[in-house]
């Protein structure tokens, strides 16, 4: 039962991204052409709300469900992995028109071809794992 909460959170995520059309290839294309505010509004308002939430968590020392203080780990401060990895991710995001969450959502919506995208993404992750030591981070 404890685990079913995560399914519910995932369902909320699915509803939000599906109904706001963020799962649409066309919306991603529109975003990268700067032809509408919609996607920037979604990401921007998520970040602004997120910053407020994180600041409240930090200042009020909000505790998690287990009673421990919520700590958000700092990401390692390097440069190459973020810019190169980010660039590669961005290429995939624009051409497939879907980032990882929309892939799962569209699969559920009946667009079963996204199983190919899922296998391809797992392959990409696997190849990264093999090459990891030779790549600049």
């Amino acid at each position, binding site marked *: 039962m404890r685990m079913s909460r995560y399914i519910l959170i995932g*369902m909320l995520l699915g509803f939000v991204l599906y109904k706001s059309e963020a799962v649409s290839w066309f*919306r991603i294309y529109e975003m990268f052409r700067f032809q509408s505010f919609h996607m920037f*509004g979604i990401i921007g*308002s998520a970040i602004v709300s997120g*910053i407020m939430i994180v600041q409240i968590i930090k200042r009020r020392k909000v505790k998690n*469900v287990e009673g421990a203080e919520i700590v958000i780990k700092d990401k390692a*401060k390097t440069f190459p992995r973020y810019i190169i990895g980010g660039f590669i991710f961005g290429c995939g995001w624009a051409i497939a028109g879907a980032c990882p969450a929309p892939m799962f959502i569209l699969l559920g919506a009946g667009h079963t071809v996204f199983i190919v*995208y899922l296998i391809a993404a797992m392959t990409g992750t696997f190849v990264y794992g093999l090459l990891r030591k030779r790549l600049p981070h």
Partner: protein
Amino acid sequence: MIEVYFMYVRDFIAQPWPWYVAGPLLALVMFILLYFGHEFGISENFRLMCAADGADNMNEFFKIDWRSGEWNLLVALGAVFGGYLASHYFFGPNGDLAHISDVTVVSLNEIGINVTKGAVPLVPAFLSWESLLTWQGLLMIAGGGFLVGFGARYAGGCTSGHAISGLSALQVPSLIAVVGFFMGGLAITYLVIPYLFNY
């Protein structure tokens, strides 16, 4: 009486959700996960699935206890259910459309992607099993998926982990990653997509 109420709620949910509803709800998803002791990041699931499929015996990057990521796999599974429910029971009055701007419709037609104003489907026809047999479809679905899987792990996160969680926590590395996302996305959108269907 109660049916009327349910229909009203259904119709209310079924309309397209504006950005100012979707954005704060995404932040809420992030907060609920933090409250339960986890950090929002969907692309980590690709690594967990590799590990669960046996990659843990082949490479140390996948030597992780994928069961510790069970919560994240369940979030992904929930997203599948959410997509099913939203598309089957909460579709819009004219089916599921992408309400993109008129300028976008014009620019799509210019590059050989034929769509009609006010009738743009949520998922384009070129993302289908039939189109997987064309080089464009293969490039977009399999090629795109590969780059997303590779790049997300290389950068240590995707749109949820870096753009939403990372930037919310004012992480400079996440800002660099998001700049990378946009550089890659702009390169593909301006240098590749225009020549896919119009050549």
